[in-house]
């Protein structure tokens, strides 16, 4: 992961090869907490995508200004600023969405994935790659959350995005926190298996690919 990697590869890396949830196994706590429904997963994903991209861009721009000895407080504060901005904006202009997820927005400050991208990537790379990395990781996170949401909402409530599809609730446990861990484990295992079987990967999810 350095400057000689093309931007397309960088993006794909964030979505697939180093998917934050299924590959890097970061920020699993919110990934379990908010994915009881597809809609929540999507909204959370969008908020993270925004904060992730903005934080990466800001950190990259300031990478020569931030003193390495106090880089962590700097990163956290930059993240907190963007989280506050999106929280304030949503509370004013997106009331319906804010009602559903206002509670989760503030938690983004403490997301491991955002801090780790700032530390691992944005602080060492130029603006454009950092931007693409942020978008890629954000989209990867968004897709992972939606996938978990589809799985859990369909099994737990028999619905998708709030629309009832099955008449009953096939497996209520899927939307409980316990079910979140089950879904996460099964999905991570399934994706690793697919990766090994069809794409010739090492299937090393949960500990970093490549």
């Amino acid at each position, binding site marked *: 992961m350095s400057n000689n990697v093309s931007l397309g590869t960088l993006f794909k890396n964030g979505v697939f090869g180093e998917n934050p949830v299924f590959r890097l196994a970061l920020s699993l706590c919110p990934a379990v907490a908010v994915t009881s*429904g597809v809609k929540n997963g999507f909204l959370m994903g969008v908020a993270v995508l925004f904060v992730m991209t903005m934080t990466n861009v800001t950190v990259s721009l300031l990478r020569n*200004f*931030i003193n390495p000895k*106090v880089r962590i407080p*700097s990163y956290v*504060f*930059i993240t907190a600023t963007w989280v*506050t901005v999106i929280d304030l904006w949503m509370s004013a202009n997106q009331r319906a969405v804010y009602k559903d997820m206002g509670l989760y927005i503030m938690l983004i400050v403490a997301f491991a994935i955002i801090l780790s991208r700032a530390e691992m990537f944005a602080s060492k790379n130029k603006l454009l790659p950092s931007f693409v990395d942020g978008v890629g990781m954000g989209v990867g996170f968004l897709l992972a959350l939606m996938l978990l949401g589809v799985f859990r909402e369909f099994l737990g409530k028999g619905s998708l995005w709030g629309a009832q599809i099955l008449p009953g609730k096939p497996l*209520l446990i899927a939307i*409980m926190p316990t079910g979140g861990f089950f879904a996460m484990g099964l999905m991570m295992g399934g994706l690793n298996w697919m990766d090994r079987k069809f794409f010739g990967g090492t299937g090393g999810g949960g500990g970093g690919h490549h």
Partner: protein
Amino acid sequence: MKDIIKITFPLVVIFVVAGVIMAVTYQYTHPVRVQAEKKEKELALKEMAPQATDPIKPAGTWTVNNKPYEYYQATAGGKPIASIAETAGKGYSSYIKMLVALSPDMKISDVKVLDMNETPGLGDQVLEKSFLDQFKGKSLPQIVLIKGETKENIQAVSGATYSSRGVTNGVKDAVQMLVDKYGAGIKTAAAQGVTK
């Protein structure tokens, strides 16, 4: 000494700039938010008493769960048609905030949940129409939560007993308060205008 300044200075600059960014955002979004919240409240109240032709006016505040809530009088052409109270009941994992509307004969005409944070898939089933519609047309003595079939009282949602109890208690407290305040009016016969 020089080191301290070299380390602290960039940090302070970041903090100050970030603070300014947040302050400016707040400056621009806060009025919009206050406006939106006010409008939402008006809309919710209007939904509780659709027949009201006059603006719904606050009638006072009352206390439940140690928190102050407002109650309102809805009128049409000067005649009272509904009393509406904000209320809350303790559910499983949150206080369930609601609006309760009473018609002048002290029967519930509508219950609406404004805000809650119950377990998704279990507790949030109390939001369903089939549960909330049970309150419609009921009067104070009927508001009792029953586990099992009931037409006379309120039937708890299975798997969401605590949340059902939260809603029922909140509604009951509100109805009790409104009956205490306005209920005497119907008993003393020909009372036209509702007084306290």
